[in-house]
C-alpha cells in the first residue's frame, strides 16, 4: 500500500474533513443509496484517505457514482462528512490534465426531450473541470 502524504494533505485541506475522527462504525456505508454501484464505499474513502492510500480511489469509477446526497454526512455520528472526502478525491481526479469525465460531445446522446437543464448543469459541474 502506498502512503501518498502529499495527496492526503491536499484532500484533507480541500474537503476540510478530519478523517481521523472516523470511528469506523460503517454508518456512512449503511446509509449510502449508491452503495451497490461503488467499488470503494464511503467508509473506505475515509479510511483509505486517512492511510494515504489514494491512487486506487483516483482510478476508481466509484468517484462518479456518489450522488452527493449527503445522507452519510447527516448520519455520521462523528461528524466526519464522507461525501466531502469523495468530492475532494473526485476533484483531484478531474482536475488532472485532460481528465474531464464529460465533454460537450457527450451531451447529444445523453439528452432526451424532457431532460431538465439542471441535470446537465450539475453533471458538468461534478464531472469536469
Amino acid at each position, binding site marked *: 500500500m502506498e502512503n501518498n502524504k502529499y495527496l492526503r494533505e491536499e484532500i484533507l485541506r480541500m474537503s*476540510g474533513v478530519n478523517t481521523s475522527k472516523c470511528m469506523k462504525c460503517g454508518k456512512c456505508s449503511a446509509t449510502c443509496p449508491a452503495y451497490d*454501484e461503488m467499488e470503494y464505499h464511503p467508509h473506505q474513502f475515509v479510511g483509505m484517505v486517512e492511510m494515504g492510500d489514494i491512487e486506487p480511489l483516483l482510478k476508481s469509477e466509484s468517484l462518479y457514482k456518489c*450522488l452527493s446526497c449527503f445522507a452519510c454526512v*447527516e448520519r455520521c455520528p462523528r461528524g466526519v462528512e464522507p461525501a466531502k472526502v469523495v*468530492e475532494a478525491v473526485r476533484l483531484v481526479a478531474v482536475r488532472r490534465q485532460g481528465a474531464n469525465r464529460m465533454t460537450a460531445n457527450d451531451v447529444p446522446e445523453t439528452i432526451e426531450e424532457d431532460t431538465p*437543464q439542471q441535470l446537465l448543469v450539475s*453533471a458538468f459541474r461534478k464531472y469536469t473541470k
Partner: protein
Amino acid sequence: MKVSYFPGCTLKNKAKDLDAYAYRSAEALGVTLEEIENWQCCGGVFTTSQDEVATKLSSVRALKYAADREQPLVTVCSACHNVIKQTNHAMQTNKEFSAKVNRYMANDGGYNGEAEVYHYLEMLRDLVGFDKVKEAVKNTLKGKKIAAYYGCLLLRPSKVMGMDDPENPVIMEDLIRALGAEAVIFARRNECCGAYTSVESPETAKRNASAIVENAKAAGAEMIITACPLCKYNLVKNGADIPVVYFTEILAEALGVKEDTDGK
C-alpha cells in the same frame, strides 16, 4: 411583501409552469416575487471543496442583489436553494473563502453574508405562515392522500440548511394539511432518488426512484409532491404510476390560481 426571487435554469425552461404557479400563488398570498435581474445559473451543485471559488460567484451575486434591496432571497428549486444557502453560509463562516470571493466582487461592492435565503416552502412557513395559507385556500384538497417527497437537497446538510429535522421533517406535510389534504408519511421521503447520476448510472436512478414510489404507495399515498424539478423528472421518468407533481402546483390549485387568468 416583496422578495428577491431566483428562479434557476429549469424553471425557466423545462418546468415553466412551476415558475408560473409559484408567481401566482405568491401573489394570492400577498407576496410579490421580484426576479433578480441578470441572474446566472447556480451551477446545480454546491462544490464542497474549500478551494472552489469561481463556481460560487453567481450565487454570491444573487445574494448581493437581495442584500442590497434588504429583501429575503427566495428560491423554488431545491437545488438552487441548496447551492445558494450553502454559499451564503460559507460567506458567513469561512473568512478565507469570503475574502477570496470579495476579490472578485470588487466591482459589485463587497458581500459578507447579509442576505437571508428562504426556500419557497420556508417563505410560506416563516414569512407568510401556514395559517394564512390555510385561510387563503379556495379549493380545498380535502380527501386527497398526498405524500411529500423531500429528497436530499432540501434538508441536507441540516446544519447549514436549518430548514427542518433532516430525519423527520414536517414542513411539506404541514403545507399539505394547510391545503386540506391528508399528509401521508413514508420513510423513504428523505432518501435520495439518484437523479443526479441519471447521466452516469441510470440504473441507480431507476432503482431508487421505484423504491421511493413503492414506499409511498405502501403508506397509502395517491399522489407525491416534490420540491425539486430533478426529483420530479426522475420519479416520473422511472414510471411512477401515481401522479408526481411539484408542490407549487397543488398550492396553486388549492388557492384557485392554477389556471392562467391574467395571461402571465
